[in-house]
């Protein structure tokens, strides 16, 4: 057999060859040192290219898909079927701007956008006033607050004031050597140097609290801590987008409707990212949501058939391992404000929701997500 060409090697490694051809390649690789070396190189290229492409996912954005089957189904039931919507002429370009339904959506959302902007402005004033408030006042607030964050650390002292920034932000604010308060009018603008310094601080904190962290990955915890400092950005930008007349998407409309619903006072969590993680050899779907205040919570979903038995918990964290269905557990309220709730769906699917918020808030998020 001739030496293998690169295409065949990659196709073999990708599992794209038929059984016979794959067997022939395998036999050749076993016998040919040169081709075995090229296979090894190809493996390296595949792994390296995947890693490089993963870096492309670091794209900042504020409009993210919200995967809410129940809400989508409800909206679909209420709205005319897509087939009934008059389709643009075949030659017409896709209507991303100026489509009349887009304008209608923009009109509906404009009201909500205004609400968001107003709310945000109010929030800014709140933040500004809090920043000017002496720390002692914050600590007084802390004493009135029942948030289970530690009260003997600077992080907690700044972090758990009523309607305050999420805990990770507080952790940053408390630990970072900030010499002056950030300007309230532009709290989100940071230089790279600032960003890196803050993340380093967050990472340090994560390492210090590694034994109590629920999320399990230092990088994720640091990232969460850091990113939440820009919490109000999304609502503002969303508002701007709507104001610019950009066509609003169906799922965004669904969120809008739910967030203003009287029956659902919690701001609808926005799906930020979805990926898969390995939990004890089992692939678990991980969905990261941004909730009110910019805090991130993580929902891990283990399909019903994935867990071989009840002892296989999807989160390999210092949480009670064999948590019963529909249980709530604080990871370690004495030193970390990250909490976890777990439950099992009617179909046996296991859910784990965790984040730097209280159990009650997690339950509200769970309800808002519509995950039974």
């Amino acid at each position, binding site marked *: 057999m001739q030496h293998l060409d690169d*295409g065949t*090697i990659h196709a073999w490694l990708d599992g794209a060859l038929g059984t016979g051809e794959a067997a022939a390649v395998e036999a050749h690789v076993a016998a040919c040192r040169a081709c075995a070396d090229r296979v090894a190189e190809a493996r390296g290229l595949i792994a390296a290219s995947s890693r490089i492409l993963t870096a*492309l996912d670091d794209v900042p954005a*504020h409009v993210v898909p919200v995967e809410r*089957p129940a809400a989508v189904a409800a909206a679909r039931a209420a709205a005319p079927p897509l087939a009934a919507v008059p389709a643009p002429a075949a030659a017409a370009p896709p209507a*991303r701007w100026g489509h009349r339904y887009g304008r209608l959506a923009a009109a509906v959302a404009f009201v909500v956008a205004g609400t968001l902007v107003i709310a945000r402005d109010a929030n800014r004033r709140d933040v500004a006033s809090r920043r000017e408030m002496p720390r002692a006042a914050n600590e007084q607030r802390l004493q009135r607050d029942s948030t289970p964050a530690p009260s003997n650390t600077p992080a907690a002292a700044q972090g758990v004031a009523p309607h305050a920034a999420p805990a990770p932000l507080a952790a940053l604010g408390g630990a970072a050597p900030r010499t002056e308060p950030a300007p309230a009018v532009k709290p989100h603008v*940071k230089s790279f140097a600032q*960003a890196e310094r803050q993340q380093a601080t967050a990472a340090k904190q994560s390492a210090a609290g590694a034994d109590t962290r629920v999320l399990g990955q230092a990088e994720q915890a640091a990232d969460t801590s850091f990113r939440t400092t820009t919490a109000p*950005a999304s609502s503002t930008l969303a508002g701007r987008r709507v104001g610019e007349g950009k066509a609003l998407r169906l799922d965004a409309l669904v969120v809008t409707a739910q967030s203003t619903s009287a029956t659902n006072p919690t701001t609808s969590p926005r799906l930020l990212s979805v990926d898969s993680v390995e939990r004890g050899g089992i692939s678990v779907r991980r969905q990261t949501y941004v909730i009110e205040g910019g805090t991130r919570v993580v929902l891990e979903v283990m399909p019903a058939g994935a867990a071989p038995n009840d002892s296989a918990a999807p989160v390999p964290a210092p949480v009670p391992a064999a948590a019963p269905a529909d249980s709530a557990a604080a990871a370690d309220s004495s030193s970390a404000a990250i909490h976890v709730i777990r439950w099992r769906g009617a179909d046996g699917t296991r859910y784990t929701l965790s984040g730097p918020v209280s159990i009650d808030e997690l339950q509200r998020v769970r309800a808002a997500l519509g995950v039974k």
Partner: protein
Amino acid sequence: MDDAERLFRTYHGMLVRYLTRRLGDRDWAEEVAQETFVRALRQDHLTNERAWVFTVANNLVRDDARRDARRRARLALLREETQDDVVEPEPLSLERAQDAALARRAVNALAERDRLALLMREEGLSYEDIAEALHLSVGSIGTTLARARRRLVEQYEALREPRRGSTGHAAS
């Protein structure tokens, strides 16, 4: 679960990621994905959903790029002019931002066909799906991917070298 929901659940995540990686613009990626699904729902029957979805998305990107080149340039200008009013996007760490920039440059250095094949493969498309979406023969996909991966890694490493050199110099 109806067809629309199943289609969305199955392909939305991978399609948005593919488009984001390809375009470097998640908002644009979302729009293209949305339009792709709208079109998919108008279809009575799709023989190969996965290939169809990616083919349509590719076509939409191509059409968008042609039509919106000027519009986007103008919007970018406007955005710069109003930068003071705009909330900055979530900042990445310096290292991650640099990695992302290098990866973007390395990916952009690939030939269009190689880039698309590689990005689709990363989303788990089979060689058959990729061949159908790119109108290539199945037999050529292995070669295409091998070339794309090698060039991507070489480009990336080449781009990283000056950075390493400057870092080392600064350290010394």
